[in-house]
């Protein structure tokens, strides 16, 4: 409580810092050390631990330590064994058979079997998961010929499903616990029991969640950590300060704001990485309301797309964390061949001139004051960067004769405006294209996703027969080459019509203490189990 009381602690920090700077290259650094408590800043505090019911980012950062999925993924976005040790897809794509890892136990000691897989998919994920109804729409039954075999029967091939079997997207939960009672408000929602490397211990709301090492974890000798604590600190400045004083070891997604990342990066004990977000793949975009003038005219939309200088936005608003986007799919999909850059290119040096020319052609002449027309630009309410971005859009569109008024509301108001009332003209937005375009991308362009009241779907309300067909075919195409060709064509058509402006691929960053080793080991980053992560003493 007094200066004296704290003296040893500050000395220890000092000693630690000295050790880090002087002794780092020595010793066998790659030999994992056992023990220690990892403290992660998770922002905001998750509303619940029911990962089978919420895919909210902060939930995924904690639930994935307790629950596991059937598969994991590598950086090439290829499936890897997890709870399923092997799997086979029948030649017609209508049956998927998973062979489960033997001798896996839930944290309460009961065995994990194919009955849990059947229950998780058919009774939980398909029914109460925000995306599960879509991911498993083709699944008609999960058969359990023996305790270690689960057979998925499909009504049509579903190649996208195999990309959505991670612990974050499709957690496997125990039937003997969640099978009893109402799943929507289950007493164990916040007392999770899974098969993962860490056991849930307690959740002090507003403070922290504590997870202790699971000594009976199926992978021998793992996890390396004794304990994992997720802390909730509402203020961004304080989070950065706690990173500086080493009270927390890491923070990802937007826990540390870009402006502080630059500052912290320069410190000797801190490391920064943009890896580990490959399966989120968010794109920053400007959504048009394509049903009303002026943005019902493709030329006007293209003009706006030309007017935005992507590099300027990345460098000045997002402090360099990102790459220009070319179209509806993130370049992360290059890893499995679905992405193409051969589309109409709006990112050109003479964008403003081209935009002015297009607007003239569209008949939007400048008035005596140089203004062609006025619009209101809504800014997506997810933080300061979006305000800066809005100000940039205002300035830049001013150059092409569009007078912009800015509007910033809170999250529920904005969601209601954009996805229920469609009462907007141009709004900034960021959409995660997720693990497979069928899950992450189709929802923004398909005519069957124009659903008032459902968020993060087709709010621009643009669609064509041709693009709908391309997406329907890609859904069921099991030949990877043919599927890629369908997506290449889709990207060309969408970019040409420009129902939204594709600005840039947003890079999340994880800021972490250099004591943290073996991170990230998966494209799911903080959404992975962290069983191999260890802390240098």
């Amino acid at each position, binding site marked *: 409580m007094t200066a004296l009381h704290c003296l040893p602690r*500050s000395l220890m920090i000092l000693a630690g810092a000295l050790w880090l700077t002087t002794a780092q290259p020595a010793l066998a650094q790659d030999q994992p050390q056992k023990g220690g408590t990892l403290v992660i800043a998770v922002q905001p505090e998750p*509303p619940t631990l029911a990962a089978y019911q919420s895919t909210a980012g902060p939930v995924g950062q904690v639930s994935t330590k307790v629950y596991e999925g059937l598969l994991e993924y590598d950086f090439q976005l290829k499936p890897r064994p997890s709870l399923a040790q092997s799997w086979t897809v029948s030649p017609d794509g209508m049956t998927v058979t998973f062979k489960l890892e033997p001798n896996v136990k839930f944290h309460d000691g009961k065995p994990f079997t194919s009955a849990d897989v059947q229950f998780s998919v058919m009774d939980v994920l398909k029914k109460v998961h*925000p995306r599960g*109804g879509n991911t498993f729409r083709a699944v008609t039954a999960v058969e359990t010929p023996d305790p270690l075999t689960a057979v998925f029967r499909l009504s049509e091939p579903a190649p996208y499903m195999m990309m959505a079997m991670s612990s974050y997207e499709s957690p496997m939960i125990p039937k003997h616990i969640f099978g009893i009672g109402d799943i*929507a408000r*289950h007493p164990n929602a*916040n007392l999770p029991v899974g098969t993962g490397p860490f056991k849930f211990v307690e959740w002090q709301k507003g403070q922290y969640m504590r997870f202790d090492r699971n000594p009976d974890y199926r992978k021998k000798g793992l996890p390396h950590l004794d304990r994992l604590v997720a802390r909730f*600190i509402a203020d961004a400045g304080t989070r950065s300060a706690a990173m500086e004083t080493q009270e927390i070891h890491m923070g990802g997604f937007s826990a540390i704001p870009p402006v502080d990342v630059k500052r912290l990066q320069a410190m000797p004990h801190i490391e920064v990485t943009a890896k580990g977000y490959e399966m989120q793949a968010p794109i920053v975009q400007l959504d048009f309301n394509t049903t009303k003038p002026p943005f019902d005219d493709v030329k006007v939309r293209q003009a706006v797309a030309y007017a935005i200088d992507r590099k300027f936005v990345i460098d000045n608003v997002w402090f360099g964390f990102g790459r220009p986007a070319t179209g509806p799919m993130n370049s992360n999909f290059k890893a499995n061949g679905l992405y193409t850059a051969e589309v109409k290119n709006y990112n050109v040096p003479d964008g403003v001139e081209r935009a002015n020319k297009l607007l003239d052609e569209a008949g939007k002449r400048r008035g005596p004051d140089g203004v062609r027309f006025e619009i209101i630009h809504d800014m997506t309410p997810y933080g300061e960067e979006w305000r800066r971005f809005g100000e940039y859009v205002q300035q830049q569109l001013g150059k092409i004769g569009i007078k912009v008024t800015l509007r910033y509301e809170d*999250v529920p108001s904005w969601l209601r405006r954009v996805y229920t009332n469609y009462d907007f003209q141009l709004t900034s937005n960021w959409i995660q294209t997720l693990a497979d375009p069928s899950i*992450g991308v189709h929802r923004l362009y398909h005519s069957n996703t124009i659903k008032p009241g459902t968020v993060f779907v087709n709010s621009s309300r643009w669609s064509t027969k041709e693009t709908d067909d391309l997406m329907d075919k890609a859904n069921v195409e099991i030949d990877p080459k043919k599927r890629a060709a369908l997506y290449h064509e889709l990207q060309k058509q969408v970019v040409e019509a420009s129902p939204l402006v594709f600005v840039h691929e947003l890079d999340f960053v994880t800021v972490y203490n250099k004591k943290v080793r073996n991170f990230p080991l998966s494209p799911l980053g903080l959404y992975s189990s962290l069983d191999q992560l260890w802390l240098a003493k």
Partner: protein
Amino acid sequence: MALTKSLTYALRRLSQAVPTVLVIIALNFLLLQLAPGDAADVLAGEAGSATPEFMAQLRSTFGLDQPIALQLLLYMKQIVTFDLGYSFRHGMPVADLIVARLWPTLLLMITVLALSVGMGVLLGSFAARKLNRWQDNLISMLTVLAYATPVFWAGLMLIVLFSIKLGWFPTSGMQQVAAFHEGAAKVRDIAHHLVLPAVTLTMFYLALYTRLMRASVLEQFSMDYVVTARDLPLGEPLGARRHVLRNAVLPVLTMAGVQVGALLGGSVVVETVFAWPGLGLLAYESLFARDLNLLLGIFFVSTCLVIVVNLLVDVGYSLLDPRIDLR
């Protein structure tokens, strides 16, 4: 005699408060309906995506598909049985959520009140006795400066100085999470974490009580009884000080009672900056999440708290000044 009198007085006051509370609840409920968007929008928004069936299912579970009047009626029915309802967002009964967050709030609030009223009374009466001398000017200047400093900025600056530069105090939280202390070590740990947030808030409220106390003491000085007492052989130091202080502290007490409400709300900033797990932060988050059940529950508890504290203040008056009758 006096005890039974205060007791019947308290009971009467409390029964009078019941209709007030009910009206406040109804008003809160209706005001909150003005905010666009609902809890289902937010939950689905956080999920990043959702199917239409999922959203319809959420709304019917939350009862959001019912007409407003019916929702209000159902809520009032619940509240009269002291059932605060269920927060679907947190998957917990509202009462449990509030109770868990109430004591950190009370701990912070009582510490701040005790510090700011106590120090305010001392500094204020000292300043009054050194009227217009350098001590008085220094106290006035410093307290007003502290009052004018934005709370979040003061908090962050204290963190920079005492946590980052000096390493004396932790930046945030209520406990050291890597250690999970028990027993006496836990109490010490919490007290250690309490210092910075309490100091930040006290700095803000101190000015108010200091100024009020100073003015109040000066007013008492001009009263006949003080002027007379000064001429008596006892002299100023002993006799007058006791009487003056007792009389002068009454307005400060009134102010403290009124401030409890403000303190409940005003600590949101401090709770945010120092990640102190109190009610203010919970209310703030539930507003943006449109978790109306929880928000109404917090409002209800705050209302009750303010009523009880004001009652205590009134009883406190009569203890300090027996001439004030409890009627």
